[in-house]
């Protein structure tokens, strides 16, 4: 990868000539602002172009998902989890199913585990591809990269539709398995999509990775230091872009992830460019996982026969289950009191907690960089606000 000597964002703003030093401008960015990825607001205090204070404001999409789930049967919350991070409904289903399986001690049949990995990694592919597209859009590359990403995403969504019946709100997993089995035909189609994907990634990288404008806009922007990243509970590609090797697929080895050989890409600088690069590399690793999973999947049952669909009542107790969703650690914390609906249901949203450090990353930067820093976090407001 070529490095560039092009100027980065460390340009000190010109000292103001008129008035005193305390001439700050308060700007309310959002909630209706194309760069905020939804209804999200930032109260920014500016000194010229420089950010001196930033407070994120959200909750516009709050529907109290947790309260709804506490009045709903365990199964009844499954379709609601689709609507948390609406780009990756399958990984949301997975995290919830995993938490319930921990709570009730349910075993998942092997084929179902493979199907989960296949659909989960496809979800990661389309999420990362789209995120990069959105990030470029925020930078002013109007359309082209985003449309390329959407073109590829379309193929994956078609796969989801022919398997689960819906493109985005898949509602695919069940406690102890998956809802429908994948036919041989479907697996073949998925194989085709997967084989074509690296070509798209090469194309994408030729378009972006060495682009001088992209480098100038992103390198050294929105730097997140390692210690702060861990302390602030940052997870997912953001954490790994800061150089910390922590991937829950490797750490917890949930499901059958211990069977696959894949690498965890790590960044060095923790800036926006690293976050872009990590996502590209993660997509390549996802393809490696997919190749192995497609090769190894064998016929068998897809649902644990002991788990009932109706009248599911786990014994009293609690469990916290988490997975590596494309955005970070997605966890579900459940307390059961033995009744058909959970006593406490809590979602640990990666998007929300990754926002904690937004202010730190933006201080001293230009306003335009706030937009791309936010874009590189990868938030979905359905999950932030719940």
């Amino acid at each position: 990868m070529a490095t560039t000597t092009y100027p980065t964002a460390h340009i000190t703003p010109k000292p103001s000539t008129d008035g005193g030093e305390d001439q700050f401008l308060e700007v309310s960015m959002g909630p209706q602002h194309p760069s905020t990825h939804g209804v999200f607001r930032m109260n920014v205090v500016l000194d010229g172009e420089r950010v001196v204070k930033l407070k994120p404001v959200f909750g516009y999409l709050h529907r109290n998902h947790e309260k709804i789930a506490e009045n709903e049967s365990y199964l009844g919350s499954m379709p609601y989890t689709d609507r948390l991070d609406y780009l990756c409904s399958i990984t949301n289903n997975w995290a919830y199913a995993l938490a319930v399986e921990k709570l009730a001690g349910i075993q998942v049949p092997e084929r179902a585990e493979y199907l989960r990995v296949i659909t989960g990694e496809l979800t990661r592919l389309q999420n990362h591809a789209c995120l990069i597209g959105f990030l470029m859009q925020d930078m002013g590359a109007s359309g082209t990269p985003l449309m390329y990403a959407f073109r590829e995403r379309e193929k994956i969504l078609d796969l989801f539709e022919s398997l689960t019946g819906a493109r985005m709100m898949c509602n695919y997993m069940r406690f102890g398995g998956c809802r429908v089995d994948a036919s041989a035909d479907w697996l073949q189609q998925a194989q085709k999509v997967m084989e074509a994907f690296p070509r798209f990634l090469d194309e994408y990288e030729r378009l972006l990775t060495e682009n001088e404008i992209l480098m100038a806009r992103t390198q050294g922007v929105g730097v997140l230091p390692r210690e702060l990243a861990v302390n602030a509970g940052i997870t997912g590609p953001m954490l790994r872009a800061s150089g910390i090797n922590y991937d829950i697929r490797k750490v917890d080895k949930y499901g059958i992830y211990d069977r696959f050989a894949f690498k965890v890409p790590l960044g060095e600088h923790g800036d926006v460019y690293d976050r872009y690069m990590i996502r590209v590399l993660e997509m390549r690793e996802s393809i490696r996982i997919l190749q192995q999973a497609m090769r190894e999947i064998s016929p068998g049952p897809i649902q644990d026969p002991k788990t009932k669909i109706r009248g599911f009542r786990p014994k009293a107790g609690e469990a916290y289950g988490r997975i590596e969703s494309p955005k970070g650690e997605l966890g579900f914390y459940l307390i059961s009191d033995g009744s058909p609906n959970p006593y406490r249901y809590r979602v640990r949203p990666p998007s929300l907690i990754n926002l904690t450090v937004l202010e730190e990353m933006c201080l001293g930067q230009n306003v335009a960089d706030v937009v791309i820093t936010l874009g590189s976090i990868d938030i979905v407001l359905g999950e932030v606000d719940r």
Partner: protein
Amino acid sequence: MLGEGILKGLAETARNFLGSYVSKDRLTTVQFPEERLPHIEAARSFPFLVYDGEDWQQGMRCVSCLICEKECPPKCIFIEKSKDKKPDATGKPQFYPVVFNIDVSVCMSCQICVEVCPFDAIKMDVEFELSTNDRFGGLLWDKERLAKSNAYYGKIHPTEAAAVDAQLAEERAKLEAKAKLAAEAKTATVATPPAQPLRETSETTEGSGA
């Protein structure tokens, strides 16, 4: 060289642009109302009620057991159970829904009603052009709007419907065999009429049920 990366990227864009004229893979846009994508079999939009035979009122499979109403996550189904029983398509007297409403503005197409239904009476439709100018009434679908024939179900979800039909036929065959056995047991004492086949046209079933 400065600008090399940009030029490379531009070359890529040019290739995509020109490629879209020759490669189908690069041109994914479909001009919607005129052109349509092939229908995906597993697709789902909103639920409908399946009926057997020709007459939707008579052949409705729903026996108004209220399971779907209870399990529906957003609570968009409203059923009023009948007080009396009416013969269903097989001639067996069953309860039936007096009112069966689904508010599709609330429904989130999650398919849980389909999964929990023990009678294969509710299935997912694929129709998606549903706009209406009546915000409340137009989106509140009643029994009549929801009822669709088993043949329609077979048309939109052929594989799934074939499996359901086979299963139902098996159950009916079992019932028939049972009835036959019972009839034979009766024959031992009384001279018998020939065993009544369970599934016939609606008139005869109604006649036999009455």
